[in-house]
């Protein structure tokens, strides 16, 4: 039996979009997203909500091979997004932190002329409460913000600094755990990460 997505696609995707925009405009803020969805495991509800809302027939989607076929079928069927042949051809990507790690250099960072043609990576973590704490600063953050991600690679902060230095090029991250979501856009700097 195939899984069903939004019961009311128009209004539910608008509601999810509003929350994703809130997360993007205030990095480090954890929002609830996709509570009503029941995507095929191991796809997190917030990851499903983000991709069903943002991806469509014009945005190639790359899904890390650690996800089973049903996840790809579910997202393709309900969003209509074509599968990207390689991560650096993708407008959106879905990776699992525990199974795939996180290598920002694999994805496209856009060009100086078109920095918007970069990959937005939906990163699935097991928890946004426990794990490495990141202190953030940058646009959308008054003074400092802080959140935690489990199983973040040890050298993530180095790679994120490189991503930050390439501005306006660079990737944006949407980190999810179950039905919670937090965004890390390329304009945000990590001032400190501590386990």
């Amino acid at each position, binding site marked *: *039996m*195939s899984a*069903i*997505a*939004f*019961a*009311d*696609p128009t209004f539910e995707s608008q509601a999810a979009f509003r929350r994703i925009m809130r997360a993007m405009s205030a990095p480090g803020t954890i929002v609830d997203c996709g509570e009503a969805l029941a995507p095929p495991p191991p796809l997190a509800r917030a990851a499903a909500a983000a991709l069903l809302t943002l991806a469509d*027939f*014009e*945005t*190639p989607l790359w899904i890390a091979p650690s996800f089973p076929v049903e996840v790809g079928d579910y997202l393709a*069927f*309900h969003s209509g997004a*074509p*599968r*990207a*042949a390689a991560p650096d*051809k993708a*407008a959106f990507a879905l990776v699992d932190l525990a199974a795939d790690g996180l290598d920002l250099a694999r994805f*496209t960072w856009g060009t100086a002329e078109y920095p918007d*043609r970069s990959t937005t990576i939906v990163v699935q973590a097991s928890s946004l409460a426990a794990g490495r704490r990141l202190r953030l600063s940058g646009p959308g953050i008054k003074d400092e913000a802080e959140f935690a991600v489990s199983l973040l690679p040890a050298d993530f902060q180095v790679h994120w600094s490189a991503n930050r230095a390439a501005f306006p090029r660079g990737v944006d991250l949407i980190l999810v755990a179950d039905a919670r979501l937090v965004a890390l856009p390329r304009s945000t700097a990590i001032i400190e990460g501590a386990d």
Partner: protein
Amino acid sequence: MSADDAAFRPQPETPEVAARRRAMALLARARREELAEPIAKRWPDHRARDLKPIESGLVMLRGRIGGDGAPFNLGEATVTRAVVELPTGERGFAHILGRDAPTARLAAIADALWRREAGDVETVILAPIAERLAAEAAKTRAETAATRVDFFTLVRGEDAA
């Protein structure tokens, strides 16, 4: 960055594709009773469920003058889409002109049933629809033919000289 071209390439025209295309085209033109009655009689327990909510929307119609001119946007048409799945796993899709959601759903169910029992659906549902459409087309042709005027040009004076 452009989407993978393969995703947008039309299906190659195999006999299976042609047969499905014909079935879906007939279902798209079906009246509600032409679907509801045979489905209720022959498949009362189909237990199809909606995979996506039935939605109405607009599609851009494109035309070519004379069938081979440059394509242009003719205008938008309202269509209703339904996607269902049978308990046995077959998926049925239907796009019909207009906003009649129940008919779109029935057409999608008939499409799913066609994928499972093509022969039965052909005789019970599709054949009567094809027959009606052929009769309507023949009637239109006959009515048009009755109004046909044949012009005869007489030899004009200046040409005869």
